[in-house]
């Protein structure tokens, strides 16, 4: 894999580290790096959120035979920035008899949960804030923290719509966590590691969705469905179900606090898509076909970071496609889907995979 070294970011990061070491004490270096990475992520986070909102609006518009945003800037590219400015200057409405502290805290919990999950995502070789040896586990744990924020938002805003939405969201995320975990576990069993970089390295000769036979594909489908549910997106957007609960848990939020929820929803979508791309579609690994040396070589010249974003946005597109096609489920059907279909399927699937791995029947 000579080409991977071509675009290796670890050289760049380690040289920055060396340079900083030459200037200050190791403790200060750690601190400076933390601040730098934090700032970088915040910037990336905001830009990505804005872009995803724009993308969603464009994608759904074209699906619905519309043009979509087209007023602000060329092709409406600056529309979401204009929206952000509008949200920033909007009044923050205090709700009477609401629990002011929790009410204000909730959006931060939601957004911090999705920020933290992003830390472990490998964008390219060496371009990863922190490479845990339990990366999959960490992302799973952190991304499900967001539900605490949602429950708080629903409870603290002293609105009946909000509390119903929050309760739905709680039931939903707790249930779907299982399927998400089990479908990720399938690949952990295949690759024998929870470290995201190791999982990616193990896909150098083929992505898990291809070389994991049918079980990996089943795990992929289950992950896609369950993670769509976990991030509260249509057809599983019961927590905000606008035709039933107006806006669900964020009914009473306005201005920038609403923007936090909104942004977190899109970032969560990105995280889930990135995770799916990393685990099932080979992360930043280029697309290779068996022994087609020439083809593989051309693919190698596309930088890994491009591959990563291509795959991620493909998954994001799939999630958007779901949302703009399907009607919403009812809460009991949602739970039936999880406990009656997804969970048994993924349980059987993981046993099957364990058997495959034991027999050594995978590539």
């Amino acid at each position, binding site marked *: 894999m000579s080409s991977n070294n071509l675009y290796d970011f670890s050289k760049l990061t380690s040289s920055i580290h060396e340079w900083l070491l030459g200037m200050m004490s190791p403790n200060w270096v750690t601190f400076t790096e933390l601040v730098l990475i934090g700032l970088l992520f915040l910037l990336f986070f905001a830009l990505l959120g804005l872009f995803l909102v724009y993308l969603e609006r464009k994608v759904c518009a074209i699906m*619905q*035979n519309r043009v979509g945003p087209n007023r602000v800037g060329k092709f409406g590219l600056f529309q979401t920035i204009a929206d952000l400015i509008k949200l920033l200057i909007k009044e923050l409405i205090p709700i009477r008899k609401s629990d002011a502290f929790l009410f204000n805290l909730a959006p931060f919990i939601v957004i911090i949960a999705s920020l933290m999950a992003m830390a472990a995502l490998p964008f390219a070789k060496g371009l990863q804030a922190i490479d845990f040896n339990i990366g999959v586990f960490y992302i799973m744990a952190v991304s499900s923290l967001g539900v605490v924020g949602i429950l708080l938002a629903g409870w603290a805003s002293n609105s009946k719509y909000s509390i119903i939405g929050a309760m739905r969201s709680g039931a939903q995320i707790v249930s779907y966590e299982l399927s998400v975990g089990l479908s990720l576990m399938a690949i952990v069993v295949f690759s024998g590691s929870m470290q995201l970089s190791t999982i990616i390295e193990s896909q150098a000769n083929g992505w898990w969705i291809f070389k994991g036979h049918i079980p990996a594909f089943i795990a992929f489908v289950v992950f896609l469905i369950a993670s769509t549910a976990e991030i509260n997106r249509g*057809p599983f957007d019961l927590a905000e*179900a606008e035709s*039933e609960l*107006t806006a669900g848990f964020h009914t009473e939020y306005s201005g920038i606090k609403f923007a936090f929820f909104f942004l977190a929803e899109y970032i969560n979508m990105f995280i889930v898509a990135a995770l799916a791309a990393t685990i099932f579609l080979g992360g930043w690994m280029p697309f290779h076909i068996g022994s087609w040396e020439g083809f593989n070589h051309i693919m190698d010249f596309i930088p890994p970071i491009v591959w990563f974003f291509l795959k991620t946005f493909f998954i994001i597109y799939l999630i958007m496609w779901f949302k*703009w*096609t399907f*009607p919403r489920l*009812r809460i009991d059907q949602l739970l039936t889907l999880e406990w009656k279909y997804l969970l048994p399927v993924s349980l059987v699937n993981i046993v099957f995979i364990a058997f495959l791995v034991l027999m050594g029947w995978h590539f």
Partner: protein
Amino acid sequence: MSEEIRDVIIGESEDYIINIGPQHPSTHGVLRFEVCLKGETVKYLIPHIGYIHRGIEKMCEAITYPQIIHLTDRMDYLSAHINNEAVCLCVENALQVEVPERVKYIRTILAELNRLASHQLWWSAFGMDLGALTTFFYGLRDREKILDIFEESFGSRLLHSFVMPGGLMHDVHPNFQKRIKEFIVYFRKKLPEYDQLLTGNIIFQNRSKGVGLMSRETAIAYGVTGPSGRGSGWSCDIRKIAPYSAYDKVQFNEMLETDGDTFARYKVRMREMWESMNILEQLVDNIPEGDYTAKMKPIIKLPVGEYFQRVETARGELAVYIVSDGNKNPYRMKFRTPNFSNLFVMNTITSNYKIADLVAISGSLDLVIPDIDR
């Protein structure tokens, strides 16, 4: 505190009452439901109406019959033409005026086009109620074609006060027939897409099957007419029972489903769209030549008496009841609007269903609020 009183208080405190409306995405207008929930399950529901009560019946007492037409437009604005036709038929019956055949044919075509447009909008909004947001745009996209036909002939898209007592305001546009035929060809291709997108969808079927069960007896007792009543197996199509205009000259079937659930009501409307196109096809080539209006006096005065006329709008039975004292304006005018009766069955058919089903049921009844309040 006695045991009884405490029970009552606790019972009340467990009532979780939420207001759906008057501004809510799923009520399609200024309608308010006071919903009592237990968990997610609806215990009972009280509709509150009157937010858009304009007193059309009172206004009618002060204006002449041709002027009433522009008010009936604004009751059920989605089947505006059919409302107008009801008043015109009632006035013509009272005066014993025989309208020309051409007028009858054109009125029937307009009524069916209007029914189609109304059902398209209903389909769009119903999908949106259930969370499939794309249906809204596909439905409106196709409805636009009908509105374009309306605009070409009558100059307005929604509230075209086009019929008058005795005939029509003016003749239809020369392109009228051609454009309807084009539309039928176009919509025959698009309607199967509706089925693929929504009807066949497993989520949609789970959401609508067995939800909001309404028996035939309930439908009759509450006077739920139109596609909603026919979904319960009650044959209540006025076009069949008492044919008016040119409905006695066309072959068509009354769409009946016996399940009585939301999906049955949905299917009735979908099949009515196909049937409306069949009716249009039978009529559009056979519009007879002739006058577009019968000879009427400049000031219409009905003879003393009481007149009653029923028509089938897109949502059910519209009855017009005129009491005349021989003047140029009616002494009393009563509109029995379909939505008024259809609304009040909500409490019966939503109790013990989930709140999400409430949205689906109210969508399947296809309520238009100005028609309820008048």
